[in-house]
């Protein structure tokens, strides 16, 4: 290749090559807000955490489909060589893959080969306060930058061409228990993030930063302060350490200019004494104006939560004719369908074993049984502390009109552990015990019909998994298991068509992309990002 090029080394043609090369590369790197809105027009790219603003985690690519999935082969693996859980969902833009890794790594790879173009790792302080692993779930991209939320509670903009830091904004003092693990969401010219730290007695918030400068444009505190509506749902000063972190990426409805975010547990997670009241806006779905951060409406899934049932599951936008909805399979075991314009509940149905509720209020919200509260000696409740599902992404397939979610069948014995609050120290107020049942814990991928709340099929996992789910126009759903398998199933029937043993449990949500007309599917497992395609 290089020889003929050398022979033709006329100045003019070289110049032309350079100029056209530059033009191409700059076109490649510019991800405009309009491109994000029109992500459906470029199914070869995966432009944000859930693939698009609706939270569907659906790929419109169909090269890999039910007729040929059985022949899929691994194409490449990228090793971070880092320990702990690898939770990233990478982005792909015009042949370049942008991913993250443990301890706030970030990298750009040749998406066809996995070969690195640049690599970045944040110099983290030794005393960061991660809750549950030194994890990161991915980047947002806008313009010529990718955005990383960090374990020391910063938001960092990296040059998408070099990995160089372009700006670095402090969201909060990490020493007080704040961290960021989610993939940011870019809307218009803003980068929106939420914090983690529900185990440290933080006061949760959602922030928006100017993508160009890193200047913070607004902050929405998920625990209302004095004088704000909802403040009365907190006992005395408990709001100051009320938790309600927003640690999973939201979705966005451009039609109404509303961004939907979800929040986690009130603090301390398993001890309600001292924080009497509903504890707004913990365990809630929030509808915010992305320009101002103003709250339009909220829906609280679990009032006065004492079981650590964060509502931090990606809010999925579903349209059924004239009905504009949000569906969420909640950690508390119920599948909720909510009107997207009003926040009004339409239905709630259990999709896993639930013992904490056997009745509903007038609006149809599940009511908690009085004796479901944790006790000092321990009280067995289903679902357990890890929930009927967790942060792993569900998917909505507009072709099958089914909602697929990773479910977990585990009950726990919930016990309180009275504990004084100390800033920056773990503040659980709780202890969990796997219960003593003879039944082992297990998991399943469940296909739910959002119209009825009924489960259409399930795929049983031998043990619970932390893998999310991807659906595709090829009639497939992809998921991983704790035993290390990455699996392709028929979206209509739940029949497994293909699997690959990754060698370690999958703790991530898969995605799909195409380069040069070839479709790929990627998933993080162990310390490696695996990428598969047809042979």
């Amino acid at each position, binding site marked *: 290749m290089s020889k003929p090029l050398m022979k033709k080394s006329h100045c003019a043609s070289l110049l032309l090559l350079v100029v056209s090369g530059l033009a191409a590369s700059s076109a490649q790197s510019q991800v405009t807000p309009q491109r994000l809105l029109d992500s459906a027009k470029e199914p070869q790219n995966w432009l944000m955490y859930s693939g698009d603003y609706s939270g569907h985690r659906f790929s419109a690519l169909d090269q890999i489909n039910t007729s040929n999935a059985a022949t899929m082969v691994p194409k490449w693996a990228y090793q971070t060589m880092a320990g702990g859980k690898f939770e990233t969902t990478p982005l792909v833009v015009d042949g370049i893959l942008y991913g993250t890794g443990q301890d706030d790594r970030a990298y750009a790879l040749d998406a066809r080969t996995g070969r690195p173009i640049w690599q970045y790792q944040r110099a983290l302080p030794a005393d960061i306060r991660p809750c549950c692993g030194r994890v990161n779930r991915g980047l947002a991209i806008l313009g010529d930058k990718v955005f990383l939320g960090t374990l020391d509670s910063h938001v960092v903009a990296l040059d998408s061409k070099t990995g160089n830091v372009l700006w670095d904004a402090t969201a909060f003092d990490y020493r007080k228990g704040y961290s960021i693990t989610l993939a940011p969401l870019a809307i218009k010219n803003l980068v929106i993030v939420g914090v983690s730290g529900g185990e440290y007695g933080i006061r949760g918030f959602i922030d928006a930063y100017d993508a160009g400068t890193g200047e913070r444009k607004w902050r929405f505190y998920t625990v209302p302060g004095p004088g704000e509506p909802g403040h009365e749902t907190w006992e005395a000063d408990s709001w100051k350490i009320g938790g309600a972190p927003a640690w999973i990426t939201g979705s966005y409805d451009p039609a109404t200019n509303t961004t939907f975010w979800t929040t986690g547990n009130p603090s301390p997670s398993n001890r309600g004494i001292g924080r009497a009241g509903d504890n707004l806006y913990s365990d809630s779905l929030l509808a915010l104006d992305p320009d101002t951060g103003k709250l339009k409406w909220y829906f609280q899934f679990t009032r006065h939560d004492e079981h650590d049932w964060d509502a931090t599951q990606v809010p999925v936008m579903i349209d059924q004719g004239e009905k504009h909805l949000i569906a969420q399979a909640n950690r508390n075991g119920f599948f909720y369908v909510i009107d997207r314009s009003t926040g009004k509940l339409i239905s709630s149905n259990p999709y896993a074993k639930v013992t904490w509720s056997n009745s509903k209020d007038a609006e149809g919200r599940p009511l908690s049984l009085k004796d479901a509260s944790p006790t000092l000696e321990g009280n067995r409740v289903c679902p357990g502390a890890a929930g009927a599902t967790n942060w792993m992404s569900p998917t909505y397939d507009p072709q099958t009109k089914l909602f697929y979610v990773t479910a977990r069948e585990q009950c726990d014995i919930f016990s309180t*552990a009275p504990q004084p609050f100390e800033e920056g120290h773990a503040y659980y107020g*709780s202890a969990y015990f796997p219960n003593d049942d003879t039944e082992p814990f297990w998991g399943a991928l469940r296909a739910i019909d959002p119209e009825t709340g009924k489960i259409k099929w399930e795929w049983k996992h031998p043990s619970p998994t932390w893998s999310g789910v991807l659906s595709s126009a090829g009639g497939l759903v992809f998921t991983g298991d704790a035993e290390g398998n990455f699996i392709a199933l028929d979206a209509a029937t739940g029949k497994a068509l293909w699997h690959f043993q990754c060698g370690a449990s999958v703790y991530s949500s898969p995605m799909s992309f195409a380069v040069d007309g070839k479709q790929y599917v990627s998933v993080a497992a162990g310390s490696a990002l695996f990428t598969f395609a047809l042979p």
Partner: protein
Amino acid sequence: MPASNKSNKNGCLLRMQRLVVHRGRSLASVAAFVFFFAAPQLFAQDKNPFAGDAKVAKLGESQFRANCAFCHGLGARGGGRGPDLTRAQKRHGNADADLFRTINEGVPGTAMPQNGATQQGVGMTEAEIWQLITYIRSVQVKSSAQPLGDAAHGKALFFGEAVCYTCHMVEGKGGRLGPDLTTTGSARSTDYLIDSVRNPSRRLAQGLSEAMKEFSQEYETVNVETADGQKISGVILNEDHFTVQMLDLREQLHLFEKDKLRAFEKSRKSLMPAYDKNMLSDKDLQDILAFLLSVGAQ
């Protein structure tokens, strides 16, 4: 709390950290002779400053519930993978300094993590560790936990009449169909051990653990029928959705793809017979426990 995978840890990194800690300590010991100021910190880890303080024990109980109970159970009586800590005899040392070291540095090669390395929180302070030790001492049984049995007779039963050895190994001798019991005596409460013998199916023992996997494989019973009609029973060594790795009753290893089997059936009824009092008297059981305890304490 996002994820409750409390056993999750970075083995390699941990080992490296431990190496650093150990080196740090021996260097500090040397330094103590040379520089006087190095001594107080070292000595602070030797003796519990709160010994016997009931109020501190209460604080320690909260620490225990938040940090330890997941594995060691409520009241420190042992759980799924953590030993019973109410035992007077601790496998990794009984002195205050031993407990401090075990809690702070973890136990290499076991599920016991280094303080602060569980990826949950930032770890306990030195004072909090001493609170925890004060609590553990407060629930520790006062008398000897040694069952009043005859260890020599227990050993004879184990390797003889009671035929435990056909499935269980102790110090390299015995079978593989059940868990190796060499360290079980020091790790489990007497109640747990008795229950395991009298009612083995109630709670199956844990087997293979994989680095990132949340739950260990258990000693489940399996019956398969191969494509050519051969029926094989045994115990599962490991399993995923698609394959199974098992030992048959003669300890032959079989590796199967499940979709190639005519039948695959798992059971949580243990292969181990439930030893009722006719099969094994209370006295003989106490003798076997005495044997396991004597081995475990070594």
